[in-house]
């Protein structure tokens, strides 16, 4: 499944690429990756909510896995964003680039999520706390975005061009949507992969114990 998703993505992406320069190509990866990261964090928060609602511990693993995948995509967003900044403006980082700064904040937040998980013993308590923190995370996304918009006037006047944004002509739009779909499918595949892997591990441990 994982391979299929990856291949589908690569296959569709390559033929569309020759139309634009390298800078544009990164855009087709960077933005879908960012959106997918949001989706993962949202899913993780949703699973967290389900956990608190139903007290069913299975949701804990699902929430954790979603956030794990989300963080990976978040790191990719930072990396691709950095590459994009490099090719567009010749710098590896730009505080004027809202998406990038937002993801930096989110990266810090979700890294703390993992620190939280590592420093509390596994159990319903840890699951509850992780779920609550995941909910805080998803609320932080729009609030941080607002904050960064406000901060721009404080820190850095907006001088860099923003023409890569809303206007996507026909073939560009199709490429974008396909890349986005592909990214989401990739994320879903990674998610299910990791989830089943962990579930199998847990089941194996249970079986070993009941035999012992």
């Amino acid at each position: 499944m994982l391979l299929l998703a990856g291949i589908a993505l690569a296959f569709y992406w390559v033929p569309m690429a020759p139309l634009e320069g390298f800078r544009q190509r990164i855009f087709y990866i960077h933005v879908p990756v960012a959106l997918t990261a949001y989706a993962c964090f949202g899913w993780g928060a949703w699973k967290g909510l389900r956990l608190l609602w139903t007290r069913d511990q299975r949701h804990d693993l699902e929430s954790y896995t979603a956030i794990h995948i989300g963080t990976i995509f978040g790191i990719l967003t930072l990396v691709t964003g950095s590459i994009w900044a490099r090719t567009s403006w010749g710098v590896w980082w730009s505080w004027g680039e809202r998406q990038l700064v937002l993801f930096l904040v989110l990266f810090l937040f979700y890294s703390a999520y993992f620190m939280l998980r590592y420093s509390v013993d596994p159990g319903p308590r840890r699951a509850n706390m992780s779920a609550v923190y995941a909910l805080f995370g998803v609320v932080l996304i729009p609030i941080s975005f607002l904050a960064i918009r406000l901060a721009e006037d404080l820190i850095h006047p907006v001088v860099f061009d923003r023409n890569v944004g809303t206007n996507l002509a026909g073939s560009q739009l199709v490429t974008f949507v396909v890349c986005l779909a592909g990214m989401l499918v990739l994320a879903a595949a990674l998610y299910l992969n990791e989830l089943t892997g962990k579930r199998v591990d847990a089941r194996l441990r249970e079986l070993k114990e009941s035999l012992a």
Partner: protein
Amino acid sequence: MIRARGLERRFGETRALAGLDLDVPRGGFLSVAGPNGSGKSTLLALLAGLLAPTRGSLEVDADRAEIGYLAHEGLVYRELTAVENLELYGRLYRVPERRERIGMLLERHGLWEVRHRRVSAFSRGMAQRLALCRTLLHDPRLLLLDEPYSALDDDGARLLDAHLAELAGERTLVVATHDPARLRPLASAELVLA
């Protein structure tokens, strides 16, 4: 009043309680014995509702207002006085005629003279007695006592014996102890954890 089937609780990889079945009728008195680390405290915490079972079922026919829990640590603020502690809990447990009840309990446990002293200035035995006052403050229907005799001197222990004798039959009790023999005359059932 309490019914457990296959009760299990793990902490990470360790299993503190495994496959326990339990039945405590209303008015029953269960003494729980076992060496250190056998899961006595875990069992009481589960019964109180502080911990959730990892597996199995647990039904306790009492809500939070009706449960009195005595832990080894005392559950009282060290930097507050005896009265301040009991006033707080009295308020939270909606104890009627709070002041009178607090006064009565403190006096009964020999703490009336030191009621305005902070718990940090108490001896271990006095702190334990205060913890007992806290537990009995709201006249709970279900009492969960985790090694209540620890740190008590002879006077304190005799006082506790008297309390338990009064409560047995009237209320439901689950008492974890190192010395099951002491409770044997009162207990209706005994559980030994390995």
